[in-house]
Structure formats: C-alpha cells, structure tokens
C-alpha cells in the first residue's frame, strides 16, 4: 500500500523528480519535498485558498490534488512570480499589495496572489464588484479585504501601463 511513485513536475520553470506515496497532497509535496514553502496550508479542505497555485496557468487548490496527479505538468507558485531578487523585480501584483498595505500577517497572501494573476490577465480593468467576487474564494483574517481590493486596483493600473 505504501509504495512510492516517481513524480516529475516543472515548478516555476525548473524540473523536479521525487519518489512519493500516492496519497501525498500536492501542497505537502511543494512545501516539504521541494522546500517551496511560500505556498501555505490553512485548511486542507479547499475552503481557505491559502494553498492556491497555478496548474498549467489556472488557479487551483494544491491541498485538493495529489502530487502524483501532476506528473508532467507545469506549476507556478508564489516563488515564481517575481522576476528577480530586488524590490523592483516584484510582479505588479506584489508591488500593488506592498504599496496598498494589502497584507498583514501575510499567511494568506500567496494564495491571493496566485488567484489574482490569471484574473488580472483576463480582466485588465475590473470593477470593484468583480474584484471582490474574484477574491471571494480566498479567506483573509487580518485585512478586512479593503486594502487587498485597493492593491488589485493598483496592480491593474500598473499592468495596463
């Protein structure tokens, strides 16, 4: 029952292969096998959204996938957003969150960012109502969301140029 299966997956452009039990959750795989601990785990039942990552470009809950299921696929995590190590390399969304004070404890933030990257790509000029709806699958306990909304508006402006 506990046999291990080889999984090869591309995360943030880099290929990794690990032997894992089929039951290992993708969230645990990213965090504890690949040491990509930016993806956070808040509920492990798909509600809080902290573990949201991009699977082939689409935001999904990594706590509701088994690592073996992503064999051969491409994942982006929060570690893959910025283009370099300096503040000016931050993704416009990260910049927006920083400038608008869109985070406090920062635990939920990676999940919000990964939800919002494709959202803004599809909706370059969203209304406040659209932003709030897009955020509604992610829980934040610190900010009351208002400054996250402002952060998204700011990021959208930046991305529109």
């Amino acid at each position, binding site marked *: 029952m506990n046999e291990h299966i080889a999984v090869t997956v591309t995360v943030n452009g880099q290929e990794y292969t690990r032997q894992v039990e089929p039951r290992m959750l993708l969230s645990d795989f990213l965090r504890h096998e690949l040491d990509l601990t930016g993806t956070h785990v*808040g509920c492990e039942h798909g509600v809080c959204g902290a573990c949201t990552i991009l699977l082939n470009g689409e935001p999904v809950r990594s706590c509701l996938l088994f690592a073996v299921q992503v064999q051969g696929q491409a994942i982006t995590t929060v570690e893959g957003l910025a283009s370099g190590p300096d503040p000016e390399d931050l993704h416009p969304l990260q910049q927006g969150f920083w400038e608008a*004070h869109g985070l406090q404890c920062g635990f939920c933030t990676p999940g919000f960012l990964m939800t919002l990257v494709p959202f803004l790509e599809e909706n370059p000029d969203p209304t406040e109502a659209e932003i*709030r709806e897009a955020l509604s699958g992610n829980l934040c306990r610190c900010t009351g969301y*208002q400054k996250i909304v402002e952060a998204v508006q700011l990021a959208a402006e930046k991305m529109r140029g």
Partner: protein
Amino acid sequence: MTTRYFGKPIKRNEDPRLLTGQALFVDDVHLPDMLHVAFVRSDLAHARIRRIDTAAARERPGVVAVYTAEDLGDYWRPGPLLVPPPPVKDIVFHQRTQVPLAKDKVRHAGEAVAMVVAESRYIAEDAAEEIFVEYEPLPGVVDLEEALQPDAPRVHEDLESNLAAHVIQEKGSYATAREQADVVISRRFVYDRGTAAAMENRGIVAHWDFKSQHLTVWDTTQAPIPIRNGLAAMLGLSEHQVRVIAPFIGGGFGPKIMMFYPEEMLLPWVSMQLKRPVKWIEDREENFYATTQERGQIHQAEMALTQDGRILGVKDVFLHDTGAYDPYGLTVPINSQCTLLGCYDVPNYYSEFRVVFTNKPIVTPYRGAGRQHGVFVMERLLDLAARELGLDRAEIRRRNFIPPDKFPYNNQIIYQDFAPLVYDSGNYEPALDKALELIDYQRFIQEEQPRLRAEGRKVGLGIVTYVEGTGIGPYEGARVTVEASGKVSVATGIGTQGQGHFTSFAQLVAEQLGVDVGDIFLVTGDTDQFYWGAGTFASRGAVVAGNAIHAGAQAVRRKILKMASEELEVAEEDLELVDGTVRVKGVPDSAIKLGELAVKANPLRGAVKPDAEPGLEATAYFGPERGATASGVHAMILEIDPETMLVEIQKYVVVHDCGKVINPLILEGQIQGGVAQGIGNAFYEQLFFSENGTLLNASFMDYLLPTATDVPAIISDHLETPSPLNPLGVKGAGEAGAIPVGPLFAQAVEDALDIPGLEIREIPLSPNRLFELIRGERTEREADHG
C-alpha cells in the same frame, strides 16, 4: 530639515519577504532527521477513560513512539496559571488548568489523550487511528445556566459545583440609584461562542541538541519569552539553554498566547526524550477543538435613568463560560465587567459575574477579549432606554458622555491589569459628531430611510460607541544598535503576528536617528536576541514596546550627539541627525556617517574610558503606570432582504481615537481587519455544540468566515487625544475594530426591520435567526429565565 518618520504611511519593511514566499513560518522549518507528531483527541466532550490500547499503533512501521498520560511520568502536571485573579474583595477562584494529556477523564471534545511520534505526519495519523480508547461517556455540561444547577454533572469532580469564580465589583450604590430612577430598563442578553480562526494554525518545532545541551523551539506563540522561562523551569534547564523563536506568525488574535498549550509542553519534552527534532502542526480540524475560543456569556442587566435620559446606575449580573479549564484567570470576564461602562459617566454600578466550567474547549482572550460583551450590553440598554424615553439614540449617548474636563476619570473598579480602572484621556463628543456627519445621519433618518421604507425596503442605521483599555503593563524592553554599516538593528521581546512591527517600530527609531526606515532591521520574537519581556496582547505592542524602543533610540541619539560633539568640536545643540549622518546644522559638509561613529565607539585599539559602554547601543524598558484608554464610534447602514433575511452592509464608518498615530496605513489596516472580524462575529460565525458538547461545525465549510463580498469598504477618520501615560502619547488600536460591531449590527437590524416589540438581544445573528425572531419564535436561547 530633518525628515519626519513618525505619523507617515510608510510601506512595510517585512512585505517583500512575505510577498515572495521567503518569510519563515513555523511549518517552514525543516530539520534533518525530524519526526512528526499527531494526537489522538477525544470525540466525546465528557467521559471517563477506561483503557487506552496503543499496541497496534506502536507496531506500525514508521512509528517511533507513542505516549499516554501514564508514559509522561513526573512530567505530567497541570499547566501553570497564566494570570492570577485580581485583588478584588471576597473573590472566589478555583484554579483548574489544562493537562498535557488527559488522564482518567476527558473534559472537552478534542482534548488530547495520546501522542504519536512517527517518521511522517501521514504515518502518525495512521497510527493515531489505531489507538483504541475505551470511554465511559458522562453527561455533558454545555448550557451555562444548567451548569450551575445543583444536580448538574461536574466538569471537575473535586469541586462542589461547576462554579469556577465569583466576582462582585461595585461603584456607588445601584440600589439607591434605582430608587431615584424615572425609568428602569431590564433585559437578558446572550452572546455566543466563536473562534479566532487565524489563517495559520498553531505549530511547534522542538529541537533538543544533545551534544550542545541546547533546546531550540519554533512556536506560533504571541509570547516567546514567557514560554522560554516556563519551558526551562518545567524541563529543568537553564533559561540560557532554551531559545524560543516566534518567527513570522500567520495571525494571532489572542489564542496564540494561552501558555502553556499541551502541545507546547509536550513537543520539547519529546525531543529531549528521543534526541531528535520533532514537529507538530495543528490542522484546521484540530484548531476548532485544541485552540482556545471565546464569547459565551449570558447577562441579566438593568439601567436606571432619569426622564431626560441620564444614567443613574447600571446593574449587570452575568455568567461567563470558561470551558473545561481556566488557565487565563479572569481576564475575559473582568474586561466585560470594566468595558461595559464605556464612554459614559455612570455614577453607580453593580457588576457581579460567575465563571462556569463547561465541557467545551478552553476560553481565553480573542481580539476584544470580553470587551465585546460589555459594550453589547451597555449599548443595547441605551438603545432600549432611548426608545422607551422617546429620545434620539445619538442624543442619549451624548448626554451621558464623560466630559473632556473630567479626565483622568476614575471608574473605581479594578481592571485586568489589577490597577484601578482610570481612563487617562478622552474626548468623545467630537468623535460622535464626526461619525454622524460621515454616515449622514440626519439625511438618512429624515429623508432616505422614509423614502426607502415607502418602497417597502428594509434599511436601517446603527451608531454605537466604545472604549478599549489598551497598552497595559507590566513592561517591555528593546535594544537599539547602530551597526558599523550605518544600519540600525532593533531587538525587542514581543512577538509579531502581522501588526507591522518591523515598520512602525523602525519609524520610531528613524524619527530619533534620522536613518531611513528601510535601513532599520527589527528582530522580534527571538529569546536569544532579547531576554526580557511579556508578549503581544491587549493592544499593547505599540504602547509598551513602542515606548521602550523610543526610549532606546533616544538614548542612542544622546550617545551620538555626545560623541559627535567631541569629534566635531561643536555644541550638541548645533548638531542634527539626517540621512544616516550627524552633522552641523547649516553646514552639510561637516558630517560624520553614523556607521563611522559606531566604529569609533567600538575601537579595536586604544583605550576606552573606564565604565564606558562600547558601541552606539542602548537598552531601554518601558512600563506604563496603567493602561491607556482608546475610544471610538462605529456607524453603519444596512439593508435586509425581507424575504430571504440576507443582509447587505451599504455603508460603514469608523471614527477612532487611539492617541498619536505612528503609521496611519497600518492603523487603518488594523481597524478594517477588526471590523471584518466583528462582522463575522455578528452575523456569520458561530460554534454550534450538541447537547453533549460535541462541536457540530468544525470546518471552514460550516464555520463561516466573512469573505471579500461580505465585508464592505470602511470609511474611517481618526481623532488624536494623546495619552499622558507614555512619552509617545499613543494608545493601542489592535482590538478596536472588532469590539462594537455586535451592538451596531443589532441596532441597525432592529432599525431596518422596524417591527414593534422586536428586540435583538443576542449575537451572533444569521438569516435563519432573523427569520425566527421575526416570527416571534422563542427558543431556548432567548427564553427569559429571570
């Protein structure tokens, strides 16, 4: 000109790490050879343990150890009492603190019964399932009032009843006030349980390094220094052999301070037993049982008033649910008792409470920490009195405000810090006026509401006030050091859970030293970096640690000026600290970089004067005489769908006075986040227990946290009435957003529904509950026992 840093909306130093996934949280700690812990927790709320069979679990491959209470030997002992009862006359207090693993009996669902240590969390959970516990179920103690009946089953059988404490505090004579009153309003109020639900669950990594005889513990605690001290004592180690690190913490809100959680006692001990690092990360299901909760109280309260709406006295008798144990003493009910008085000049007050043991998870402070209940009772009584007397609800509040010339104002009772409840400063009427203006009170009640009502729409307004006792002692400290690079490091003992300490504290230092905020490196929550302190609670970080850092920075500034005056041969008064340099005013060329000065202050050759302290460094402490009292007004307009009872908040206003503001951006964030938790508490979040005490909604699917579509944008404004109790003039702001939302919601809902005789005397509400209330259904919860 020197740049001002204090009071500026400076973006946060900590954010780039958090935004790129580089910030270290406890579960990010990976150590070689690390083992993983899972707990066997009781499904039953109240039961005798007959037998525990761990044989199968011990045999499972990958399992390293299994422990029950018996296996802990001498280490098994009840946890310490964190806060002793206050010095109030004739107080009754029965101390019963939590145990590391239940022995003989379980007292709440989720209480840990056995611990499995294995090579992975997955295996640990497999083994935990194989541990068989034979229970003899006992009837549960759930309802607060039934718990005090003589025939009630007892949570602690060595006590005569489920009474944990009994406290009476009095100011003046309520009985006399009542005799003189024109009107007496008397009602029953109920406030039910919720949970803090920080996005990060608790977690602990403990690493006993046998060769160096040193213990390192990463802990999601709000109070690392007391944890270190306690662990050292329990484990028989020197405090210098123990390092507790509270790294980035994913939200605290109070429950991350209940030392000692059973897991906090066990993990370090297990690491020493097995000589391997061990990790336990609470999962969300465990968090609903194993992390402390708050809010269950039942009040029978009355208010005596004159015909023109002046309060003559208030009487409040209430029950407080402490759950199965009471390790946090009486902090929560004392806060309820004290905060009830609010912004008002109440000449006579009688307050009596009984704390009750129940078979439910332990109660300790959660953001607001009992203040909610007091504010709820007082504000609701005022609303009911206004209605009875035909007075405007804003006017009745205005008439009873403590006037600005009566500060410091002594309420003549004892607060949670054991000091008399004395308000340091306040100015309540301008805040009320500002809130009325921002919510457009007159226009709403005179034009908009009548118009919308005529269309059949249910819109209502609420406006309430509150005070918040903040920034209590005992003390905090800080060490401020100018490094050779010219950058400044600051170490303080408190932990940080998202409050922006890395930035607001840096601003305080920047203000004194003229160094850019980005060049100031903060260390919080690491006991090896700063030895002394208490922790982050009671909205005290900015007040207590902030003033200690301020004092430390001032001391370093004095050192810099003295040294530079000698170096440059000018008077200290002629120097200024700008852009990381100290220079002669008006002569920018005559500047020394702070880094150079720091090197000179710590020379490798030459003689240093006897008694000289090396380095540009200073350590300072601050302990306020008593807490600083913040205050504010919240107002909102909401609409209820009269068919579905769904509620939409249309406008929300906060006018807040927390004295001097260090960083308005961070303050706004604190207020907005607090309001969101208040809205959750008022309308979405409720823990439902069965009659036997099992929790019926231990998941985020059924325990509803408000989302971005449920929380409105908040319009806020700030007034500044500085506190005279500390040099910065600041007051705490961490809990203010959350405190008054219950009564605000209740008032606005009542106003919107506009049904004669309908009173909202309970929180939380829900669409279902509103439906029941409108239909006049009397349930157990609201039935009048008095």
